């Protein structure tokens, strides 16, 4: 049975998952920009068939979501680390993280996905 921790546990799990996701993207990104030096044609094809392809859009949106969550929750952790506060406040801070996430993510996703529908 999985341990039933509170909000903090799930905020942490999400932070780890998005962190690993962003790291994987960065590795991929290093590899593809490396290809531009050794084989420019392959690079052009890669950009056209993968990064600019419509099927890749959802991954782009997922990356944006991961970076946004990781950044906002990172600020939450910094606040917890540097300001003395009763621990229950971390839940309110998490509420603020979710609020800001939705506020920033919805327009972001809209702009990322708009080219698909026009």
């Amino acid at each position: 049975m999985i341990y039933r921790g509170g909000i903090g546990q799930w905020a942490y799990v999400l932070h780890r998952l998005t962190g690993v996701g962003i790291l994987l993207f960065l590795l991929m990104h290093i590899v593809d920009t490396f290809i531009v030096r050794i084989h420019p044609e392959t690079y052009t094809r890669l950009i056209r068939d993968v990064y600019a392809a419509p099927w890749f859009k959802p991954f782009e949106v997922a990356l944006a979501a991961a970076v946004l969550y990781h950044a906002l929750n990172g600020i939450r952790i910094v606040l917890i680390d540097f300001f003395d506060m009763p621990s229950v406040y971390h839940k309110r801070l998490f509420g603020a993280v979710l609020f800001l996430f939705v506020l920033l993510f919805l327009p972001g996703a809209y702009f990322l996905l708009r080219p698909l529908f026009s």
Partner: protein
Amino acid sequence: MKVHFRIRRYDPEKAPKPYWQDFEVEVEPTDRVLDGLHYIKWYQDGTLTFRRSCGHGICGSDAMVINGRNRLACKALVKELGSRIVVEPLRGFRVIKDLVVDMEGFFAKYRAVKPYLITRSPEPEKEWIQSPEDRARFDDTTKCILCAACTTACPSFWANRDFIGPAAIVQAHRFIFDSRDEGAEERLAVLHSRDGVWRCRTVFNCVEACPRGIDVTRAIEEVKRLLLTRKL
């Protein structure tokens, strides 16, 4: 009311692997999980093994995983848990038998932070005097009963058994912030090491698990900040 108990059992002398066993118990809603365990042990299966001593939430012997969360069996009321209760031993410790775990490593870490008053100044004529404000500074962490509910709820500890863990940090905090104590440096050296406070990832499971309502993460953060500002 009828309650269904599902208990994680383990007896290395009988079977190499742990297994689940179910019991039906008749209890009052106001009874505690400990009462249910007693009923099972006294009337159904005398081999069921668990620790308990005071039965009143003060000795810290009976922390266990109850319905997926660390609690004291003597403080968890049946009415708060419903008619299906799942009981497992604490996580991250070696299980000796059924709900009894090996806490030697846990107490070794407790001893490592020197949980006693250390003084170097000449002894005062009567007693070490402390103002009410100075006493209040560490009041929260004096309440710890060393039940290990916090440490065994911590993902950092599950991943790395060498992590000193929230309970030992709480104990260190109790003395570091005591105005009469002069041993802070020795304790901070332990807490500043590889497996010290910096392994805390502010998950807050310890705060939710603590049966004494200690704000464990806040205490850990206070130690972290002390280490940081002391260096500056």
